């Protein structure tokens, strides 16, 4: 029987099995003083083996305690749920072509009501059935490369994303949309920003903060905004598309190297840090917010550099941190360390000797700030000046996560420590901004 996937365990599973009851069947539960009838519903999440979940005729679910005297009988088969796809919208073929590369996350999913979970929308038709408006914006094709919660995305997946995107761009299209879980979306956007050089078209990374199973989900609005930008935006950069506020009014585009998830649950969780967002979309119109950006069509040939070196660490300094952590990375043959220091770019003096050892062992060490907002300045205090003297590379206003990704990418391109150091300080994908704007604040 199918209780293997139903969440029922041990004793209850055995009783259900004996009754021949499967998920969706109408069952009758007889106890000492009452009889309950309802549709057998899967159980999720708990290790409980004492209750059965049934859906009553009024639609409500309840949990019924099973005692040794309880009897369960199958009395009928319930209605079998099915996903009926609404009629597909008409596709006009003279619209720009956009490929949605799907990696997972709630953005590219639809509800599976049988299990209450979500499953990926696998094809363009699946997507059209959920967001029919897409067909009026572009000719959309989909390429599902994985179905991952974004915390499970690794360097390997960045490489694959970059390669798949390059393949589609080479075939010719108006733009790419990458559907991604939001938790590590900022890292992936930074990775693509370095791996895809001389982009001729936009690459829009998009996620959602409310799952697609609720009518209020931001998934559809974000996806529509992303596809529209991929098809028509004047810029050709890697950008993250999300809600700008709590409203479904505007979609904001953040530069891939300058953005970060700053809230656990809000729709506008992503922020551009130390720069203005790249562009805003309102009523389907795109307005550029930065004067200088890479224009669509400025390059005709994409350069793909998809290699990353995983032997890079991001270490957040905190009071009483054990400096031996750095030694561990040295012993594990790491090639790079990004420090997330305090304030203007400091770590405790008790870490200095281990940092010196790391640099002596040809490890590239860069400094960023855990303040996130503002740039580091290691010349103001002795502590900073001494770190510079050790050979720590100041990384200005670069985000710690972007610095990590960048160093992984650099060390994926070269083994030469000096070259790596100089690349780390160079502005390759607008990861540095030269001015700190007056209005720039958390």
């Amino acid at each position, binding site marked *: 029987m199918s209780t293997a996937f139903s969440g029922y365990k041990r004793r209850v599973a055995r009783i259900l099995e004996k009754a021949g009851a499967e998920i969706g069947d109408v069952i009758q539960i007889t106890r000492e003083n009452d009889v309950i009838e309802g549709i057998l*519903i899967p159980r999720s999440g708990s290790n409980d083996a004492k209750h059965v979940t049934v859906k009553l005729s009024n639609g409500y679910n*309840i949990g019924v305690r099973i005692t040794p005297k309880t009897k369960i009988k199958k009395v009928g088969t319930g209605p079998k749920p099915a*996903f009926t796809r609404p009629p597909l919208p008409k596709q006009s073929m003279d619209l720009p072509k956009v490929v949605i590369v799907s990696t997972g996350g709630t953005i590219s999913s639809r509800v599976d009501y049988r299990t209450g979970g979500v499953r990926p929308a696998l094809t363009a038709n699946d997507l059209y059935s959920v967001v029919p408006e897409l067909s009026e914006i572009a000719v959309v094709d989909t390429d599902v490369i994985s179905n991952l919660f974004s915390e499970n995305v690794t360097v390997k997946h960045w490489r694959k994303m970059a390669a798949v995107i390059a393949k589609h761009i080479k075939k010719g299209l108006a733009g790419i949309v990458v559907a991604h879980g939001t938790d590590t979306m900022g890292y992936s956007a930074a990775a693509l920003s370095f791996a895809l050089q001389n982009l001729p078209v936009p690459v829009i990374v998009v996620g959602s903060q409310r799952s697609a199973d*609720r*009518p*209020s989900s931001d998934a559809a609005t974000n996806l529509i905004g992303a596809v529209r930008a991929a098809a028509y935006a004047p810029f050709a950069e890697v950008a993250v598309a999300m809600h700008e506020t709590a409203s*479904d009014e505007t979609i904001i585009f953040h530069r891939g190297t300058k953005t970060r998830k700053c809230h656990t649950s809000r729709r506008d969780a992503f922020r551009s840090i130390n720069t203005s967002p790249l562009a805003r979309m309102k009523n389907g119109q795109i307005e550029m917010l930065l004067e200088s950006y890479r224009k669509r069509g400025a390059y005709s040939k994409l350069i793909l550099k998809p290699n990353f070196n995983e032997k890079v660490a991001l270490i957040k300094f905190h009071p009483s941190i054990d400096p031996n952590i750095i030694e561990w990375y040295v012993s594990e043959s790491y090639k790079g360390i990004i420090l997330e220091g305090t304030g203007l770019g400091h770590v405790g003096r008790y870490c200095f000797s281990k940092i010196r050892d790391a640099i002596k062992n040809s490890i590239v060490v860069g400094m960023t700030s855990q303040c996130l907002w503002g740039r580091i300045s290691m010349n103001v205090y002795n502590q900073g000046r001494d770190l510079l003297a050790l050979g720590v590379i100041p990384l200005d206003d670069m985000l710690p996560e972007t610095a990590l990704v960048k160093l992984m990418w650099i060390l994926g391109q070269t083994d030469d420590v000096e070259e790596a150091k100089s690349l780390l300080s160079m502005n390759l994908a607008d990861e540095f901004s030269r001015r700190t704007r007056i209005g720039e604040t958390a």
Partner: protein
Amino acid sequence: MTSIYSEIGLKAGLEVHQQLDSRTKLFCRCRSKLFSGDPIITFMRQLRPTQSELGQVDPAALFEFRKGVRIIYEANDESSCLVEMDEEPPHPLNREATEIALTVALMMKAKLVDELHIMRKAVLDGSNTTGFQRTCVVATDGEIDLKGKIVPIQHISLEEDAARKMEEADSIVRYRIDRLGIPLLEVATAPVIHSPQEAQETALAIGQVLRATGKAKRGLGTIRQDINISIRDGALVEIKGVQELELVSKIIELEAQRQLGLLEIREELERRRAKEKDFKDDFRDVSAIFQHTECKIIREALDQDKRVFAVRLPKFADLLGRELVSRTRLGSEMADIAHFWGRVGGLFHTDELPAYGITNEEINKIRQHLEAESLDAIVFVADNLRNAKDALKAVIRRAREALKTVPEETRGARVDGTTRYLRPRPGAARMYPETDVPSFRLSADRVEKLSGCIPELPKVRISRLVEDYGLNTKLAKQMVDSEYASLFPMIVKESAVSATVVAVALTETIKALKRDGVDVERISDTQLRDLFILIGSGRLAKEAIPEVLTWLAEHEDDEGEEAIEALGLAMLSRKELEIAVEEIVRENTKLVEDRRMGAAGILMGLAMKRLRGRVEAKQVGELVKKQLKKLVG
């Protein structure tokens, strides 16, 4: 009475919704408090229909969405947080509210469920930011005792209240989310009520049990009833949002009458041999006929480049204008339906014309244009093509239904007990599990603990009020029915005012003031308690109660002290009172000479009038008699 209703096969069920007075909301720790004044934040959302568990999309919801309805939400900081904004997952189910719900369930002898499962009930009109209402059954199979007759309670559930609708215009709806998330207890009876009177009594009995917990919120909108009504050959119609208990029986009477009226229309159509296939979506542009019209509504529409579209309803003449119940005709039903589907402001039908500046000549021209026969009715609207088409399509659908049956629908109650079409009845399968809140087991310990402290049932309470407080039975009953039932013992205890005086004030006086238009709902518990403490300490006369209550209703932030000052109600001292009585007696020497001791009554009345609210009647009486005795010996 009952026999008429059993003859027509009336069946009614009630769903009573009562806001609970828990410290915080059901799924977050915001206070359950509404705000007035400007919101500090507004945000816009659009809700997208999702498929139900069985893979269906509610057609009405899909239609709303395609029309591009935008919802503006208003919030302030005190009454809402990110949870109500749907910007943060719900917190665990409020324990206090759950215990109140379980207590009610035990009082109604219902079976508590072993494990609570929170469900999402799809609601796409914008009243919930999520697009669904969170709800869970806490008990099933209860009963309510109606003087011997047992009305079965199907289920008792705990759910979150919805946002308050502030405004609706074109395709924008405005809601305030302060009310969203307030715990709401739903008590649903089986559809076994067979007369309007019985329904009213059931509602009252349920209300008594809810109030007996002492945890029912009070004030306008804190208790709302939905009524399901059907008659034989009619249809199940759901009437939503009945705020006045007193309206329950009237609404049922009127709805039964409305359905009977519709069945008569069906018979008449049958006699006229109306055929379903003759009703066609054949909409004609008749704008040209109105080129020089005197009709302001049409004139304005044409000036805005809108058009007039008409459709023929074969054999419907005189049926659209026939009154079903007060304020309700098939024509007005169609107008509401046309508004729902086509957002048109209204429609014209030939049964009500000539009127509104539309002439017989214009009507005849339309009739000719549509080749209408004398038994045909014509319906027309002035709007843009899309709205007009949606509206007239809905009119044709409704006309076809009129041939067959009474349609199932959701209606809204008006204050006079009549109802109006709101929307089609939502499909059955619109419930799915709330995956963000874990299910919740009721331990035997907890149930036992709750069973040990069940509040008294109303009957018991009435006899105790009679015994312990010396109220007469009528007053005791009124007190138990009152929203102030739980406040009563507290006030008597802390103020030391006579229990009868308190009970009269909390029932009869407040009811009378309400009838006179005083907004008594605004008077807070604290204000009431404070008022009686002032009376108990002799600083305010009990005769001043109505006046002070009226004042307090308009001064939410003030207390009794301020009322005394503002109304000049400070009690007179014994000395001042003596002087005042002497004065009154002196002014009426003739009367005293004529009637001697018999003048006491009139003098007493004069004194009470002049010194209104600043003296105790008993004291005045004593002094008047004393003075009279002095004068007449």
